[in-house]
């Protein structure tokens, strides 16, 4: 385990960014944190989390895939990808780290998505334990330990120091690069913090959220639940929940005619949108209720069914704080589980 004094943290950042791009949460002018490329003068945010999840680094909101040159009846396909370079994403919370696992299971299973895979290969993730989880946090419900985040390098921020522990080969390499600016450390302070965090987690309002009712094979049980009507009744059908969600991975492939060629790009899409499943012969999810149900069934039933019981939600709480009508997965779980009035 390595450590560095927080007052010298910029030395750490500059040591990383000498070698590769470094992205970390920085407070924007509205007080909200967003992942930003580090350069001299940028201050690491102490916010619990960013509004937009770090999935953007591996699965960008918009990404050019290829270009077509059309000449009369002929078409030429051009792969416009450039060689990727290594980069570091710093300060990723335990929930978002799990979200990468969830995305991996979608994009890296056969047939592997090369766009995602390349970025994943080149990205080094430094996670960060949560010392001050918020009321909207419920990662423990999905078996995530915010005091002991995974990823390539795990980090703990104490009052005066930052502790780092590598978990993978990539992480090891990074810590070697940082050997000059960090010191060897024991685990005492970290263990202390871990205990502290666990005790806080138990006091959070959503600590008792129960996921045992959900999981693979429960389609019949929940699909026809009358609760969906009421839950989805006032859903606006916007894409906020899906776009701030670290695990939502639906996308659209679209063409843009530049006048000189055609760019085929991929962009985030939302199952909450009315157009999402519309095709020439009709739409199999015509009402907002069906679309709303799809999103939550996917996270709570369909995904675990296809992925050894792992839920498609990580409890980061983004949708809880960002939904325009404050409808969210916690309310859905409580309503479906029949534990609303407990």
């Amino acid at each position, binding site marked *: 385990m390595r450590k560095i004094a927080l007052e010298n943290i910029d030395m750490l950042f500059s040591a990383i960014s000498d070698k590769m791009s470094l992205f970390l949460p920085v407070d924007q002018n509205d007080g909200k944190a967003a992942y930003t490329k580090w350069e001299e003068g940028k201050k690491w945010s102490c916010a619990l989390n960013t509004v937009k999840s770090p999935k953007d680094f591996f699965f960008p909101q918009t990404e050019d895939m290829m270009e077509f040159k059309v000449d009369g009846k002929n*078409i030429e396909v051009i792969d416009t990808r450039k060689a990727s370079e290594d980069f570091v994403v710093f300060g990723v919370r335990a929930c978002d780290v799990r979200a990468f696992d969830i995305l991996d299971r979608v994009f890296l299973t056969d*047939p592997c*998505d*090369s766009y995602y895979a390349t970025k994943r290969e080149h990205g080094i993730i430094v996670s960060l334990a949560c010392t001050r989880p918020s009321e909207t946090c419920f990662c423990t419900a999905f078996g995530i330990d915010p005091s002991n985040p995974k990823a390539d390098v795990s980090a703990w921020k104490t009052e005066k120091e930052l502790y780092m522990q590598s978990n993978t080969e990539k992480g090891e390499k990074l810590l070697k690069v940082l050997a000059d600016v960090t010191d060897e450390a024991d685990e005492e302070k970290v263990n202390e913090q871990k205990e502290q965090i666990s005790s806080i987690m138990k006091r959070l309002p959503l600590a008792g959220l129960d996921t045992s009712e959900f999981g693979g094979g429960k389609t019949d049980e929940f699909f*026809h639940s009358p609760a969906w009507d009421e839950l989805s009744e006032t859903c606006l059908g916007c894409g906020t929940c899906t776009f701030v969600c670290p695990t939502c*991975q639906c996308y659209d*492939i679209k063409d843009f005619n530049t006048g000189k060629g055609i760019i085929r790009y991929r962009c985030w899409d939302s199952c909450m949108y009315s157009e999402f499943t519309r095709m020439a012969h009709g739409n*199999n999810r015509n009402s907002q209720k069906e679309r709303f149900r799809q999103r939550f069934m996917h996270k709570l039933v369909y995904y675990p069914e296809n992925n050894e019981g792992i839920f498609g939600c990580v409890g980061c709480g983004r949708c809880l704080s960002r939904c325009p009508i404050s409808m969210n997965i916690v309310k859905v779980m409580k309503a479906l589980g029949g534990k609303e009035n407990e």
Partner: protein
Amino acid sequence: MNKTETLIPKVGVITDVRIDTADIKTFRVVTPDGKKAFDHMPGQCAMLSIPGVGEAMFSITSSPTNTEYMEFSIKKCGCVTEWLHQAEVGQQITIRGPYGNAFPVESTEFRGKKLLFIAGGIGIAPLRSVINYCRHYRDNYKSINLVYGSRSMDDLVNYDEILNEWTKDKEMYIYLTVDKEDPDWVKHVGFVPNYVKELKYTPDRVAIVCGPPIMIKYTVAALKELGFKDKQIYTTMELRMKCGVGKCGRCNIGSKYVCKDGPVFRYDELGELPDEY
């Protein structure tokens, strides 16, 4: 297919356009050097696209045993199909695939069995691939029946091949029907589900049904009346797809993705899925 190229298509050339009906054409596609773009199994699909217009999934209607080219029977109903219908021979498009599962033509589910194909309208497109495959390996299967219906005589797709080749095969029985009477039509008139009932098929065979959703619904009901079990009925599904590889999140019915786990479903598998298709 190369792993790094799942979403990057190949270029294909339309080498022949056959007009089947007023709104259905059959396109023959090969790569620019005149070869077949890729191998497939009957029932599988391919993603065709016209840059700038869009990409859409189509079932491959030619048989895998055809090693020279692929064919797609396409009905005009959306942006991509409308564009394709205006395309001339020599037009390049892009193609990627094959996607989805196939009919279990090589397993004992089909092998050594009597096969009953039931198609409505453009529903013949995916079945043609299977039928020609089975005709090619004729000894592996017992009798083949086809009940095929459409709105009118002029809407029967692939009529020439059916009349001139299929009817001449031994142990292959073709029953055609149209919805509305026509002075030129001397064969059966009526809807497919009723015709299936009239033909009194015994449930000692495998039924493969494809057509408009409403036709599938009533045909399956008719088959069950005749004593068929869910496990003997196969169909192929169609939902919106963008990626073809089960990642874009559109085509799922419950936990199953049509483009990956489908499009071919046995009816008992479909029964386990929520009614959202």
